[in-house]
């Protein structure tokens, strides 16, 4: 009983932390389209945030690759959902670390795509940090179009290459 109360308190505390993160996102980061999008999406599903820690086996079922539209760095709703799952695990396991690698498809210029890839990785990083993950647990890197997941010159290949990959 007592343990459950502690769990509830932790859940409440986390939600407060998250809400604080969200509101700062709104004010200071209106500059980041990725951040805006993530914050909005979280707003609609905030009730699902809980203090229950995830095990590594639970985390294994979560998506680790998140896809984007051409020349965009807004995360899709399902990506935000999965990232919140990763956030829970990372909050519960402060020694765990992730690398978020942002990628672009081959269209457009290489340096612009590196910048775009970083935006995509940072959009994912923001979901983690607003859900309580310490920034010291996250490393962001962008490869732009230099490391395609799929080699091909068509929309289905491009769609698989516009991504952020999360690895522990």
């Amino acid at each position, binding site marked *: 009983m007592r343990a459950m109360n502690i769990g509830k308190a932790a859940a409440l505390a986390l939600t407060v932390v998250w809400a604080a993160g969200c509101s700062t996102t709104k004010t200071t980061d209106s*500059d*980041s389209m990725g951040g805006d999008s993530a914050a909005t999406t979280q707003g609609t599903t905030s009730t699902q945030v809980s203090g229950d820690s995830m095990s590594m086996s639970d985390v294994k079922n979560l998506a680790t690759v998140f896809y984007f539209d051409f*020349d965009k760095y807004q995360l899709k709703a399902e990506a935000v959902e999965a990232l919140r799952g990763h956030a829970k695990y990372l909050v519960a396991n402060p020694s765990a*670390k992730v*690398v978020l690698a942002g990628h672009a498809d*081959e*269209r*457009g*210029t*290489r*340096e*612009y795509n*590196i*910048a*775009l890839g*970083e*935006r995509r990785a*940072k959009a994912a990083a923001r979901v983690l940090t607003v859900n309580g993950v310490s920034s010291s647990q996250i*490393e*962001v*890197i*962008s*490869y732009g179009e*230099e*490391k395609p997941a799929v*080699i091909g*010159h068509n929309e289905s290949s491009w769609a698989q290459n516009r991504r952020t990959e999360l690895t522990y």
Partner: protein
Amino acid sequence: MMQRSLVVLMLMLWTVIARAELTIEITQGVDEPTPVAVVPFAWDGAQALPEDVAQVVADDLHRSGLFSVMPRENMLSFPSDRNSLYFRDWRISGSEYVVIGRISTKEGGALEVSYELYDVLKEERLLGEVINANFSNLRAVGHYISDQVFEKLTGVRGAFSTRIVYVTAELLRPQVYRYKLTLADADGHNPRTILESREPILSPAWSRDGSKLAYVSFETGRPAIYVQYLATGKREKVQSFRGLNGAPSWSPDGNKLALVLSKDGNPEVYVLDLQQRRLSRVTHHFGIDTEPSWSPDGQSLIFTSDRGGQPQIYSIYLPTRDVTRLTYEGKYNARGRLTQDGRFLTMVHQVNGSFHIAVQDLRTGRLDLLTETYMDESPTIAPNGSIILYATQEGTRGVLAAVSLDGRVKFRLPSSEGDVREPAWSPFL
């Protein structure tokens, strides 16, 4: 977490000659190229020469697209001096100009190359020179002769003696690449690998004196900007902040590098003073600001920004930091480069979903599409402003192609191995 990759640096540039050479294929020329004959040079030695100098000259002139070069099998004779040159024969065969020459041995294994350029119609000698040479520099001598002939006949300084660098990526097995930074003559010959890595190499940029390169390498697992001296192979890491370190561009005075860092949160353009090691931030915007390039007077930087919602090219005047948008046509204009006179802006331009090289006349605002190949990117302008080299796709491979600034001359430099990209043309050397 980040894997340290193996980097092999070639300290002696000339020790490693890559097997793959680029060869030139002309895909489109001018409507009325000037007919020229380059007669095989006479040679008084016993052993065969390692290079056919006249062929080097003929190929250079042909590749410029401005000349049609007479095939050797159509020549009635191979004159090597004024006395054996019968203008009437060359007039009948349609040549307006003829280049003749001879190579002779000197003491101590040295060579002497003489060439002359004649106007066939006026029966007049336009050029003549004797050049000290040796067995190992005959291609360079050929390019030098091409430069002289080209300048005499077009009024434009030749760029045949310049060099290019480019990056190749070879897929070794799924997700594992071998990246190489390669230095070659402007015609693709004499390729020398100057850096090899398992991690991406990109954005090579020449200093204005042609003595060093700046580029981005991921060899430590993270992107960093390096400067490499071409004569010695010595190099130094000049910038490696957390986040992006990209798109280096040398100032005209050679003392500064414009570059892109995201250490303050998002990609911004900075200028690094290489002597004082002082970094100053140039752009202040929450959007992406990248791909800086200097104006020829060093007073402005042009750069790509998505601050308007889509990537477009802007100019920032450094003394006042006033920003001007330069491109308006189309939804995607990026990686701008200015010609040496500052008048023309080349860029990657998206039209109907595909990417091409376009040029904008900054005086009139007129934008012209120069290429119609596939996935065209990384335009780099020859130092004489005549030709733009760029990267494109042929089948599933990246290759280099070139187009004249007026769009009339097009040629391709196919490579026999790997995916070729990111060309950068040297200044006059």
